[in-house]
């Protein structure tokens, strides 16, 4: 709790970061305005009307902000402690490694949920308020669990991956680049294979592609990559979280043995 609250307070104290958080709510604002017009002007409803897909799309808009916030907040979470030799100090206190990792994860998770789950839920509530009835909600009850499940999956994947990478180095800049590579490079490699073969069966290579695939399934939409089983995509996402946990277990130690 202390690590989490201290980390959150220190990030909130940075004006530029607050600016980024505000910017991350811009898609929410645009969507809210769209829903308002759709609810109050029947002519606009045909073009601007909200559907289940709109909420799925919203997460696509937020993906870049999730990436930026993960980099900004997450790259130095453990790397900076390693650099300052603070890891040994933390773990010499009555604090277990699990508590330390949980505290660090919480910092990232809180900010990521702030730009994914919270605005999506608020959008749903606003939608209902603008419409003045529960018709849409009743017809799309699955949206509540879908938004929650997908946000948490997206956030957990980003947080665990970033934290694991952060534990591998004492340079936050290097960690940020490794994470960028994990996201964009895997996407680019899949892009080459798809462009050459016209086939989506290699989409499991792309980390963000797997998340997109699982996201569509959660929202009961058609898979993004028809040639890749969604279970494989889910296995890659879960596998990534597991591998990250193993890395954190190995790397977060009070004493580093240098051979």
């Amino acid at each position, binding site marked *: 709790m202390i690590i989490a609250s201290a980390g959150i307070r220190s990030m909130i104290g940075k004006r530029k970061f607050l600016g980024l958080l505000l910017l991350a709510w811009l898609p929410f604002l645009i969507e809210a305005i769209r829903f308002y017009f759709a609810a109050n002007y029947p002519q606009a409803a045909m073009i601007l009307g909200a559907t289940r897909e709109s909420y799925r799309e919203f997460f696509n808009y937020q993906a*870049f902000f999730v990436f930026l916030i993960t980099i*900004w907040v997450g790259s130095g979470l453990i790397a900076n402690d390693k650099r300052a030799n603070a890891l040994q100090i933390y773990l010499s206190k009555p604090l277990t490694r699990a508590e330390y990792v949980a505290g660090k994860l919480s910092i990232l998770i809180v900010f990521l949920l702030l730009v994914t789950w919270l605005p999506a839920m608020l959008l749903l509530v606003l939608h209902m308020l603008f419409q003045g009835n529960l018709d849409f909600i009743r017809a799309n009850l699955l949206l509540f669990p879908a938004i929650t499940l997908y946000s948490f999956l997206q956030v957990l994947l980003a947080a665990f991956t970033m934290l694991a990478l952060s534990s591998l180095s004492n340079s936050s800049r290097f960690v940020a*680049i490794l994470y960028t590579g994990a996201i964009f490079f895997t996407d680019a490699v899949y892009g*080459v294979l798809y462009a050459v*073969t016209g*086939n989506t069966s290699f989409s499991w290579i792309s980390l963000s592609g797997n998340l997109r695939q699982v996201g569509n399934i959660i929202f009961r939409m058609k898979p993004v990559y028809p040639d890749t089983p969604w279970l494989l995509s889910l296995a890659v996402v879960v596998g990534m979280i597991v591998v990250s946990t193993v890395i954190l277990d190995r790397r977060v130690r009070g004493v580093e043995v240098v051979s």
Partner: protein
Amino acid sequence: MAHENTGVSGGQQTERAQPQGAASLSTGVMRVFDLSLGQMLWSRRTVFMALVVAAPMALALLYRILHASFGDPEVNGQAVRGTTLFGMTIWLLYLRFIVPILGVFYGTSLIADEVDDKTITYLFVRPIPRRSVLLGKYLAYVVSTVCVVLPSVMVVYFLTTPFDLRIIAQSFPALAKDLGLLGAGLVVYGAVFAFVGTRLGHPLVLGLVFAFGWEQFALFVPGYLRRFTVMYYLQALVPHAMPQDSAMSVLQSVFREVPSALQCIGWLAAIWAVFLILAAVTIERREYVLEQ
């Protein structure tokens, strides 16, 4: 407590060599280049760079093995030709990812790393102009990245191109263009992000926003916005067909304008010169307050 007078008048004077004045810009640049090149090449960053350029080489090697064993591999009834693979690799891996990411990674950290590590003091208290520190490191970045990336492109080319002298002769000019434009990309992105690194806080985040946010968005939107990107001019020089790997790519290809090669080279040279000069001016005038 007794205190000895240790003033100049007290003791022996040793003969001291006349100190040199400030070194010229070019001498300073070359000396910093010597110091930085080894550091850049034999560092963890190079491991990252090697991994990143290894992926296209691995894909090309896999293709070569499949081609040698089974002829042109087919996926879903479609033959996977080596030249297509090479073209897509240039577009999607080298141009859209490797070149910008290396520019961001190295360019933003030329000075920022020295500031974070607090080693910049040692460079700034030598009789060399401050801008020679930046320019020397920039030169080391260009040499390191060009010496790793361009040979990997050639490896991918030779692995994906059939060993037929006629085909090689036909496609070699395109390879030369690819090497030129990728080299130009490294040089120009490096200059842009060198300025970002010397001038702005959080240069890495800003660099990523520019390379993977702004450039993607601006290229997608019809109009003049795309001219405020580096990628617009680089893409115009690519001799291979644009990929259609995603909706964004399809839309980009629909709205694509292709300025002349001369225009592109001119604008790239101008961007390079402006940002490098700005970076040099910034480092001369800026104070770098190190964290205590």
